[in-house]
């Protein structure tokens, strides 16, 4: 299968934009921040760095086709799950339930997705995993905070595995007249939703005044969110040439995924606040964890998958 020409154009364009952003970040670091730590400049450079990682990894996965995409998101799911479970309350009695989550339900979900067995993967976690996990916990005969522990494992699986697996599931849709273009559907989703993150941040820095949800997030402002989602919807519409959508459909779809993305980051912030931490288990001090970076993709993916499936699949 030859790569679609749109994909090459897209990657070339993204590389160009990132190159400009990296140079800008370098100049800002040396001439505005004068090589010192600087909140806005450092945050900008960190975000640009993440975009490089994301684009390079997606590019590598895309060259390997469906298997590459499935394996990439499997690994991302693993990292997200590791962060999520690290921050939740578990007891020694949960050991086998946790082992089942990491070593059975996580891989099995991705294998089912790769096989395109929609009828099973769509219910595998919300029915069968949810039935099995409390059985493990009950067998351990430890009833302390039982209900809470079960609910937390459910959330972990839904957020980190089920929702995330809807991204590679896009590879299995069959859209008439769009054969071989499924990678473009993924590229469109990731670019639109992740650009919404950046644009909300930029608008918030420039125009932000009114806090949107002070109990959840100190950085989100009404101005930032409205401006950022509006701008990212324009980005998604402008990228409609990647997709089987018309301009109007692309605008509607972009608005839907961007709104879901916003709710995703609010929900994950709420969970973080509940656990009394500022950041999901980060790999370095001051860096965002996998869940922070992908919270919006996670919530947008299932809605996007089903909209495309119902609207465009044969």
């Amino acid at each position, binding site marked *: 299968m030859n790569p679609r020409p749109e994909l090459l154009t897209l990657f070339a364009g993204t590389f160009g934009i990132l190159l400009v952003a990296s140079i800008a970040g370098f100049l800002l670091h040396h001439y505005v921040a004068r090589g010192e730590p600087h909140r806005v400049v450092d945050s900008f450079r960190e975000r640009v760095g993440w975009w490089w990682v994301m684009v390079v990894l997606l590019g590598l996965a895309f060259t390997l086709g469906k298997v590459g995409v499935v394996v990439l998101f499997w690994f991302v799911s693993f990292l997200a799950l*590791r962060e999520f479970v*690290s921050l939740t309350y578990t007891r020694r009695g949960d050991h086998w339930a946790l082992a089942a989550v990491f070593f059975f339900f996580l891989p099995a979900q991705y294998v089912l997705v790769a096989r395109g067995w929609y009828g099973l993967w769509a219910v595998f976690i919300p029915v069968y995993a949810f039935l099995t996990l409390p059985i493990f916990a009950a067998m351990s005969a430890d009833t302390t905070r039982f209900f809470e522990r079960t609910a937390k494992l459910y959330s972990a699986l839904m957020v980190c595995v089920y929702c995330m697996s809807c991204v590679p599931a896009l590879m299995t849709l069959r859209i008439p007249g769009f054969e071989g273009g499924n990678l473009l559907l993924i590229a469109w989703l990731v670019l639109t939703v992740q650009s919404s993150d950046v644009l909300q941040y930029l608008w918030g820095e420039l125009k932000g005044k009114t806090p949107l949800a002070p109990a959840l997030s100190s950085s989100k402002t009404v101005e930032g969110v409205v401006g950022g989602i509006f701008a990212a919807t324009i980005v998604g519409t402008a990228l409609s040439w990647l997709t089987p959508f018309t301009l109007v459909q692309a605008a509607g779809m972009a608005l839907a995924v961007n709104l879901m993305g916003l709710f995703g980051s609010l929900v994950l912030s709420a969970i973080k606040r509940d656990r*009394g931490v500022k950041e999901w288990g980060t*790999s*370095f001090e001051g860096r965002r964890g996998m869940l922070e970076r992908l919270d919006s993709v996670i919530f947008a993916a299932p809605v996007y998958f089903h909209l495309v499936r119902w609207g465009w699949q044969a």
Partner: protein
Amino acid sequence: MDTIRFTKETLAASAICGFARLLTGARAIWRGCAPAAVQRIYYGNHTSHGDFVLIFASLPGDLRAHTRPVAGADYWNATPLKRWIANDVLRAVMIERQKREGAPNPVEQMVEALDHGDSLILFPEGTRNTTDEPLLPFKSGIFHVAQARPEVECVPVWIENLNRVMPKGQVLPIPLLCTLTFGTPLRAAPGEERDAFLDRLRDGLVALAPPPG
């Protein structure tokens, strides 16, 4: 100057450290000192058999080559595989935890390793802590070693979460993020009493533990 050689031991060491990172993230926080090539005794809280592997894996590669864990011979000599990992791969200083007639003196073994220029990883509690207390009482071995070589720094390392990765009695580890917080180095003062020194070591380590809750 060492030359880098690829033997099955160095490959196994890389594989073990890579696995530990994949499983736990092994995130090192250098709060009280920098990862410098200074001769040190890294001492930590002991909650799992994976403890010294994790400290080992969180050190930068150049320090790792000159750092030897101190391991209990009764556990690590129990099977040929464990013996190979402990002796040949991780170059552990194998000590007898129970006093036995004719057994080498653990303090002398540790001092000898220091005299070869290596740093040590040591768990002064002596056994894994499964209680709700942050630390068990320290054994006095570290005091005798620190008195014998007072120029060596004792660096506290608080390991958080590893007891959840592999609870005592389980064989299958669960992937969870662990952090290792390296604290401010301590040295034995001339003529310092044993209990006073052990208390200082203990306080230095407990100070790194996250607040309960």
